[in-house]
């Protein structure tokens, strides 16, 4: 029983990442009609915002310690971070320790700007082009972005650890211990998903965006500059992907390829949820996350060898056969 509960928890936190990325993908597709293959790269850039802030906070001045030697036998160079020098040992160390949560504030403006520049600078030129062109150009952009990150940060993963206070395990249910940061990630994803839905549901801006998603032409005829709002939605979608990346860093060390690792799965999530359906994307994200976790259980693999590697695609095929529009897909979208 404990094993099943653990896999449900695993599925929920895997699903959190899928849902956040798929939510952004669906927002972009629903508003701008663009199939954005660079969305995984935005997730990766978010994670590297965290790496960047960590490096900024660890910027150090050097002093030579003649009592110690380096690997070549020369006097050792000791590095002391400026934040420790400025704020003292305990405060400075605490700031560095909490660099991932602080990176949320750091990443939001960066991701909004990147999203805005990406949409205005490149993607808007492809609105009226076929989906195949959009896929090609955004996929190319994703490769360019990941190569830029690799050129700056290298190919190896870089750890962005959770704060000490949140890096252990917590008892989520009697007798069930689970990593604290994964619980934080799940709660964080619920907050972000809730905030996006609330923004669309309860604000005038959101109401106009929803109207534009339903009938862009009519909204335009009413004198509303829907393009400007959709551009902002692209920025918000980039921000959601970026925040998902920042918070994912302590779960798996960021590397330049992490966006691609999630991209294909996230597209499957979007298709299973129903193209253009925000609730569908979120529901499918959690559903596929849980199924993937169960498929990795030992007795399941013993029963059907290799099921852990194909479960998501198998479920996608079955759902598309039974419900061609996906779980909550709308009529007329991508048909």
């Amino acid at each position, binding site marked *: 029983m404990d094993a099943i509960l653990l896999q449900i928890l*695993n599925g929920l936190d895997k699903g959190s990442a899928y849902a956040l990325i798929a939510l952004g993908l669906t927002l972009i597709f629903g508003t701008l009609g663009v199939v954005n293959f660079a969305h995984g790269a935005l997730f990766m850039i978010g994670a590297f915002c965290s790496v960047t802030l960590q490096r900024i906070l660890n910027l150090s001045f050097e002093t030579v310690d003649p009592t110690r030697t380096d690997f070549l036998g020369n006097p050792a160079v000791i590095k002391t971070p400026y934040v420790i020098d400025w704020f003292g040992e305990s405060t400075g160390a605490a700031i560095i320790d909490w660099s991932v949560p602080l990176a949320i504030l750091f990443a939001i403006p960066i991701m909004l700007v990147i999203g805005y520049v990406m949409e205005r600078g490149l993607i808007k030129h492809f609105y009226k082009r076929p989906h195949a062109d959009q896929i090609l150009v955004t996929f190319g952009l994703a490769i360019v972005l990941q190569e830029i990150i690799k050129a700056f940060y290298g*190919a*190896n993963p870089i*750890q962005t650890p959770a704060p000490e206070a949140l890096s252990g395990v917590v008892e989520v249910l009697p007798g069930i211990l689970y990593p604290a940061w994964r619980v934080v990630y799940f709660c964080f994803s619920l907050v972000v998903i809730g905030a996006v839905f609330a923004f669309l549901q309860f604000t005038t801006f959101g109401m106009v965006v929803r109207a534009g998603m339903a009938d862009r032409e009519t909204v335009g005829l009413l004198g509303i500059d829907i393009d400007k709002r959709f551009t902002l939605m692209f920025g918000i979608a980039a921000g959601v992907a970026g925040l998902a990346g920042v918070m994912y860093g302590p779960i798996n*060390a960021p*590397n330049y390829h992490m966006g691609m690792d999630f991209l294909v799965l996230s597209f499957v999530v979007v298709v299973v949820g129903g193209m253009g359906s925000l609730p569908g994307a979120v529901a499918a994200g959690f559903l596929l996350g849980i199924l993937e976790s169960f498929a*990795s259980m030992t007795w399941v693999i013993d029963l059907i060898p290799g099921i852990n590697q194909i479960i998501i695609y198998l479920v996608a095929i079955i759902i598309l056969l039974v419900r061609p529009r996906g779980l909550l897909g709308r009529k007329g979208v991508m048909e």
Partner: protein
Amino acid sequence: MSITNLTRRGVLRTGAVAGAGLALPTYLSAASHSGFTNAPGDSTVTLGFNVPQSGPYADEGADELRAYELAVEHLNGGGDGGMMGTFSSKVLDGTGILGRKVEYVTGDTQTKSDAARASAKSMIEKDGAIMITGGSSSGVAVAVQGLCQEAGVIFMAGLTHSNDTTGKDKKANGFRHFFNGYMSAAALAPVLEGLYGNDRKAYHLTADYTWGWTQQESIAAATEALGWETVNNVLTPLAATDFSSYIAPVLDSGADVLVLNHYGGNMVNSLTNAVQFGLRNKQVNGKNFEIVVPLFSRLMARGAGENIKGIVGSTNWHWSLQDEGSKAFVKSFGTKYGFPPSQAAHTCYVQTLLYADAVTRAGSFNPCAVVEALEGFEFDGMGNGPTLYRAEDHQCFKDVLVVRGKENPTSEFDLLEVVEVTPAAQVTYSPDNPMFAGGQLGSCNPGA
């Protein structure tokens, strides 16, 4: 009626194309006159360095390339000579190889077998490389080794740890200096017994490809011989990034040791996930739960950060060794690049010197002469103690290091501490060991 639409330009164009077509095979096999592929001219010789310059192992590839450039510099008489001064064979004199200046071309394996073969093929056919070396994956090593055998050039493997490279996929033109899964297991087993006892239940997570399978087989056999029980072995997809759903079942399995047969990004993520789930602080069967990572790499250890502390594994070489060869190499490399070399850099540097030495001792670049010079060659002064290049399978037999993640590192490079230097005799196996069965070395191919 006769065809009269021939033009002067048409005839010239057709003639040029036909001429080029006829000349091409001659160009590609220009060396055939010397009796072997890509025989060098009188002034230079070209080596092909085939390393991952893109993809997940690009950092290791970059370190390999640094080592190759350093080796070329030393062979051509530049720098401080590095290990040439400590190498037991003294035939290399800094004038290149057999009086020819060493030049090199590079290829990008991308850590993909097909890409690695394509770049090696290009270096052999277009650039005239007489020896191919490098790589950071067993899949790549096996693929390129096969290509070199067919093409008639020598392959000096880089970082490849699968038993198969010098087991069922061994080739007469291929040589491996790096250790393998069997040797890791043979070196680790006594240390694991000393640290954790002989009543343990081990749970294996294994990367689902040739290296993972052979390593798991080796470790399971060695630990079971101690009295350990292998509770389970779960194959994980190479593309997996989140291992939480594989770690969770470990908690209820009754196992008290988790063996991670993972390398690279897989290792960083699976170890991180295992630590997140509190395995390191867990008590099972009245014992502390332990994690073992049989193949360690300092570059990867850096990626795993704090999680590596206290974890036991094995490595081919480490920069902190204090023998004269290691000190000379670390000094050369560290002075040139500003940081210590990795084990990948070490094995690539050594392989280049060993090839140059074999050619010089043989007095010929002919691959069959080089094979003869390397087979059964015994040497020292290269950082791993007395070493034998065994004739039967072209595998080097030398000391293996058992290491542990350092609890209190003094610098960003000081991540691993050497727990034991396992003597070569303890990791040596017979050529007909079942774990290495299934292939034939065959005979050397000089190509042409």
